[in-house]
């Protein structure tokens, strides 16, 4: 069922395109040797190039170029062997040279595609228009001094990729899924850490609305949205606003807006007086960037397995459902963990444990899978203990919780706590006898034809055995005793 906004004049379709700014993982900046670490003291990671001192010149960082190309390859996009840097001119104190070096006319990466997965299990292909490299600006701090603004240039000149989608997205859910998938691909590639809180990944959301079958109407750009949830909320808020404007007989003006997450609305960012003429022109300090085809091929061959391929493989090799596979490949670390558990074992069981108990434990403790209290080796070993009958499935839950709590190996826990499954028929028979003796009325009812009581007896016997009875043997013994 397509997402629509029901207005007073009928249903409105929402059209969304995203421009995602992703900070490239690189030790130094796009055109200078200054460091890029997050959270350093203000103005400690600034070279004379970043501060635009007289006579300073940019030199392209090869690592950043490789990262952009790898990202392009990961988006199954066309790599432009010749691209160019332009200057985007405007005055602002956090932009020391008075221009941003960006790829306006000739980006390094052309058209690509991102497959998004939706909650109903369906997938959609979203077009990527282009990816280009550009410099980040510094940061203006307006709250450090009563009458002045302070400038931190640590971020000035840091390499960004701007990844522009086609206006192919049609709902807040799709917009969220797009950012989630893009983030996943970037993290797999190691080209962006995807950390939206620290600003390494930010989205500009372009939204318009239209009646079914119409051409596009005027769009507005909601700038610098910094979480996936806010992307979805911003789309919804902006679409609702536009529907209200159109339905009130007004006209949506093309403009830049900001999402106010506190009030859940968008508001205009710039007035017309500030409309910029950026005077783009090719940066004369840099020759066109020419890539060697063999080098691009080398990068292509060295790409890691990406989420889509991994998902297909998990479905094929492990017999997982599309949904389970999708959940497991979203993060590379999760996929790695799962494979370590699943290899040579019951994959469906492994998937259930990872997406069930493990995720629940991680959520509770606020930890990531990289520092999971239960290692993949331990979880695998625990599954082995179930498979070889050392513990039963019910006890496995207790063992898992104990591993999460203590970090100990499953064997040690089973040993220490005496959780080994009881297969001694003498002990089972004794427990059965004790239960039947304690419940003569229930025994009579059962024998009178109330078959449903069998489960009650199993439960009582297992309780008597503190959960450790072998379920098959308990069933067997009960059947015999009750007939």
């Amino acid at each position, binding site marked *: 069922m397509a997402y629509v906004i029901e207005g007073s004049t009928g249903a409105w379709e929402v059209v969304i395109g995203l421009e995602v700014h992703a900070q490239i993982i690189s030790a130094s900046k796009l055109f200078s040797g200054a460091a890029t670490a997050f959270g350093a003291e203000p103005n400690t990671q600034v070279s*004379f190039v970043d*501060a*635009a*001192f*007289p*006579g*300073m*010149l*940019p*030199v*392209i960082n090869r690592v950043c170029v490789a990262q952009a190309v790898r990202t392009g390859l990961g988006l199954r996009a066309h790599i432009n062997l010749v691209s160019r840097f332009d*200057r985007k*001119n405007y*005055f602002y*104190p956090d932009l*020391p*040279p*008075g*221009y941003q070096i960006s790829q306006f006319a000739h980006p390094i990466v052309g058209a690509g595609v991102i497959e998004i997965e939706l909650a109903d299990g369906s997938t959609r292909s979203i077009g990527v228009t282009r990816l280009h490299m550009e410099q980040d600006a510094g940061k203006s701090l307006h709250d450090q001094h009563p009458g002045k*603004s302070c*400038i931190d240039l640590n971020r000035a000149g840091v390499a960004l990729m701007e990844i522009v989608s086609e206006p192919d997205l049609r709902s807040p859910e799709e917009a969220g899924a797009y950012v989630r998938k893009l983030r996943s691909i970037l993290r797999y590639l190691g080209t962006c850490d995807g950390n939206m809180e620290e600003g390494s990944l930010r989205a500009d959301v372009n939204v318009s609305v239209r009646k079914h079958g119409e051409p596009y109407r005027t769009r507005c750009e909601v700038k610098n949205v910094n979480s996936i949830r806010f992307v979805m909320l911003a789309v919804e808020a902006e679409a609702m606003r536009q529907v209200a404007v159109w339905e009130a007989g007004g006209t949506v003006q093309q403009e830049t807006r900001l999402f106010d997450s506190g009030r859940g609305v968008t508001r205009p960012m710039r007035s017309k007086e500030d409309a910029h*003429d950026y*005077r*783009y*022109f090719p940066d*004369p*300090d*840099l*020759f066109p960037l020419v890539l060697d085809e063999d080098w691009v091929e080398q990068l292509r061959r060295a790409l890691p397995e990406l989420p889509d391929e991994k998902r297909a493989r998990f479905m094929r090799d492990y017999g997982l459902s599309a949904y389970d596979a999708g959940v497991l490949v979203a993060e590379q670390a999760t996929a790695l963990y799962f494979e370590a558990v699943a290899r040579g074992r019951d994959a469906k069981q492994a998937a259930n444990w990872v997406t069930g108990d493990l995720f629940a434990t991680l959520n509770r403790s606020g930890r990531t899978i990289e520092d999971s209290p239960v290692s993949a080796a331990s979880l695998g070993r625990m599954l082995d203990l179930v498979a070889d009958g050392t513990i039963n499935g019910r006890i496995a839950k207790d063992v898992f919780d104990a591993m999460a709590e203590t970090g100990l190996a499953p064997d040690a826990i089973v040993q220490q706590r005496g959780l080994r499954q009881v297969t001694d028929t003498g002990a089972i028979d004794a427990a059965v006898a004790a239960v039947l003796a304690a419940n003569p009325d229930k025994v009579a009812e059962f024998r009178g034809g109330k078959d449903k009581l069998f489960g009650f007896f199993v439960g009582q016997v297992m309780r008597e055995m503190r959960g450790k009875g072998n379920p098959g043997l308990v069933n067997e013994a009960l059947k015999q005793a009750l007939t």
Partner: protein
Amino acid sequence: MFALTLAGARAALRARQVSARELTDAYLGAIEALNPRLNAYITPTPELARRQADAADAALARGEAGPLAGIPLAIKDLFCTAGVRTTAGSRILAPFVPPYESTVTANLLRDGAVFLGKANLDEFAMGSSNMTSAFGPVTSPWTRTGDAAPLVPGGSSGGSAAAVAARLALGATATDTGGSIRQPASFCGVAGIKPTYGRCSRWGIVAFASSLDQAGPLARTVEDCAILLGSMAGHDPKDSTSADRPVPDFAAACRRGVRGLRIGVPREYRSDGMPPEIEALWQQGLAWLRAAGAETVDVSLPHTKYGLATYYIVAPAEASSNLARYDGVRFGARSEGGDLLEMYENTRAEGFGAEVRRRILIGTYVLSAGYYDAYYLRAQKVRALILRDFTEAFHNVDALLTPTAPSAAFPQGERMDDPVKMYLNDVFTVPASMSGIPGLSVPAGLDARGLPLGLQVLGKPFDEETVFAVGAALERAAGFAALPALRAGG
């Protein structure tokens, strides 16, 4: 001592006939005596010079002297020099002391040179007369016969050229964006070469127009220029447009001769208003080269007439962007204002002179929405055609010979009311700048009023050696020995 050329001084230093300290003290004395009249230096650096001279003497004594050990030079105040104020001739950089040394000046220091001080120039190298410097105009050491009116030294490297001509330095660094080395060389009767774009690093040189700016030397002789360029040039990974090629022995090329070379004579340089004596000197130069064994042939550079107009779109466009960084925020002069915008406006209005403001406005205009295609984009297309003209001409000839400038030096204050007339100074030098090819100006004669005139040798990209060979042959034939009235040791 002032009669020594750079090559001669080098030999005398090695033979210990003179010490670097003596040479430097002599030049510092000359600066003290004459600079108040010439204003060729904005910032003399006597203490630094003496320290460097002493170091050169020590190196010479140890036998470890670099190729320029003890050679006193003037440094155009567009080159950033560590710990020494670098103004670019502008009020906006008046308080600026760079914490870094430009690659070109670092190369000279590596080779043992002594820096006498920072030479005056047109503000941000924008000008052909040295009248736009915020530190006052440079007066040429030359005067017309029987006329004491102060003349311009040419520009923008007017301080460098005047210093060399008046013997306030043995040589100088300069930069050329549209003719700023060659035109002042011609006006001041000295030699100067703009090498191929990319031959010298631009790192640490205050930028005017990045796709055109190129450093080069000014000196008394072609060979002196060759020696200096040999030290200044070389690949620099800090400048992405710097050429990664070996630096040839330019001085050796000066001795090659021109026998068998084909010298092109571009017919489009024969402009209508050209003074007859410049035309005559040009013909004389061709005759000298033929006499030395070269062949001269007519060539056509059909897009020459668009050179100047194209240049005055491309250079201001780049300048308008390059000069955006002078905003009073991080370095240089700041004029306070009530808010950020006012501070920007006050800083730039008070910091930049009229010519710089004019070019920023022109550049902003030609890049703005709606005009970009008609001006900047079209200019880039014409620029490609100008380069193609040269490329095709160089299929048939080894070098070209033209006049350097359409006139001799003119009086200070003349042409100030008409920027276009002022821009016409660059008509013969701009096409080589637009094409990135090397161009050398050689003093070849005097006009009727006793002022020097230069001839320009243009060469293939990265073939400065042929340019030097032709220039040295012209120099030998011309035997230019005239000296300005105002000079040290005179």
